């Protein structure tokens, strides 16, 4: 699902391009902040426990909650950037028309899956409203909202891809996120 890197000509696609840039910027920033929060919380817990003899068991709960939201926001950005892992066996050998068809076909299937997953997350958030976490006592619904954000967002993005095909989202020379 990697996007092209050229400014689109059509007004609709230009709008989508700006939206996608905004989505990646915001999601990147939120994801990075959440990840930094996870790091700081865990280090704080180690220092408090091993050096100050002070237990902070709630940090594990908060850290995993932050990580779930980091996955939610990060998965949106990763979808725009085309960073989700795939096995690319033959698409580079396809002629342009077949490539466009394959792109839309996979976008439709992805959209259907994400919609089901988002729906499931929403149902679970309602069913778990009265279940509370052990240390902090917050509702489990908040955990499911993190998943819902990611899947709902990817449903919209993949629906757009299925309808419009590839959409540019970043100026040439812009930095993408690459796996280490």
């Amino acid at each position: 699902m990697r996007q092209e890197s050229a400014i689109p000509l059509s007004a609709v696609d230009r709008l989508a391009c700006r939206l996608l840039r905004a989505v990646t910027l915001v999601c990147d920033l939120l994801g990075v902040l959440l990840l930094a929060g996870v790091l700081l919380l865990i280090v704080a817990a180690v220092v408090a426990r091993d050096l100050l003899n002070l237990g902070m068991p709630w940090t594990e709960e908060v850290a995993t909650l932050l990580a779930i939201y980091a996955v939610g926001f990060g998965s949106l950005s990763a979808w725009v950037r085309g960073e989700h892992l795939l096995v690319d066996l033959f698409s580079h050998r396809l002629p342009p028309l077949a490539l466009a068809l394959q792109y839309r076909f996979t976008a439709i299937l992805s959209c259907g899956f994400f919609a089901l997953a988002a729906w499931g997350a929403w149902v679970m958030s309602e069913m778990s409203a009265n279940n509370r976490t052990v240390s902090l006592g917050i509702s489990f619904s908040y955990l499911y909202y993190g998943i819902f954000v990611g899947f709902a967002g990817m449903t919209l993005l993949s629906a757009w891809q299925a309808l419009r095909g590839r959409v540019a989202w970043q100026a040439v020379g812009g930095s993408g996120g690459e796996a280490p």
Partner: protein
Amino acid sequence: MLELAIFVGGLLVLMIIGLPVVVAIGITSFVALGVTGSGGLPVELMSLRMVQTLNNFTLLAIPLFILAANIMNTGSTTTRIFDFATALVGFTRGGLGHANVVASSIFATMSGTAVADAAGLGSIEIKAMKERGYDLGYSAGITAASSVIGPILPPSIALVVYGWLANVSIGALFMAGILPGLLMALLLMGMTVALGAGGRVAMPAPAPFDGREVLRTGRRAVLPLMMPAIIVGGIWTGFFTPTEAGAVASLYAIVLGGLIYRDLSLKALYLSFRRTLMFSVAILLIIAVSSFYGWILVRIGIPQTLAGEVAGIDMPTVFLLLAFALFFLLIGCFMSVVESILIFTPIVVPAAMAAGLDPIHFGIVMVITLSVGVITPPFGNVLFLMVGITRLRYGQVVIAVLPFLLPILATILILIAVPSVATWLPDLLGY
């Protein structure tokens, strides 16, 4: 077995048509749930399994170790390690080849993936080898091969995922990876000696040993070299868990680059975090959706059936493990290590345990054999990285890697024949 063929076959078809792995696993799971269920499609089950999986402190080790490796690759840490390794073993024939393996082994004790090793150290190693007149193909081959040590020596993302899925102590798995990782490093260095002695590869004359240079580069690298001791020592002494070790390693890397060496800018730190986010999200989302896939497998009874069948096979365990290893070597050619572990661990581990195999030994064999896939065609990630770094053609890189597959396969065979290579250290340390 028909269900297994449909389950795995359907998944492979969806992946081959170009669907992202997470979507392919999710669709296969939903289809299986719909076909085998008692009517309706309880879509909320996947979210339930996903949150149960992600709400797990152990899995946070994955982004944290990736972050530590990314930060170290940004600053001068990797250069310092390589310079020290060069001073230490560079005086021998093929010295930079040995230094390459030593540096990769050191870096492997700080990062958790082969790709992090090849991407970070690879360009430094190949540039140095090229400048000193080493054959470019040989340089690419040894750099790619030595990166396979990354997922074997602790910490290892693959071992974290396997341990979590197979319900095996991650600390024990980390310790079990040490001897096979060191054995592989030694055999790779042996191959360099063999290639140099045969005169088939251009290698410059060795420089004389310089003790002062070892001391100088050692002083520069002493702080990065403390990281493995912090990670392994901290876990072994019970000072912190593997996840906490990842956080401490990341913070240590930030302090080294940002405050001590002052070669890690805020922008570079942000980009390291973002790279970590992208890679971790892709893996964690697959892990979360795979837990649903694994749950359906168990619900259908596939692992139980397979375990019964394997337990009924009248074959020495060593041959059984060899058969598993061949299967994983084949799978590793097409799928990434973590994906393969996620898909096959719930299926094969019950079968392996039913046949009397040790889950720690089996896990190490599984991770090593699957890791070979990063340097085998057609999808070896490290091969593509080497093409990018060396500008050699893909086929040239594949041929350059071939001789180094021998020591890697020898390591696997020794590990299969002598299980104590993996189990001795965890047993000794009381795991």
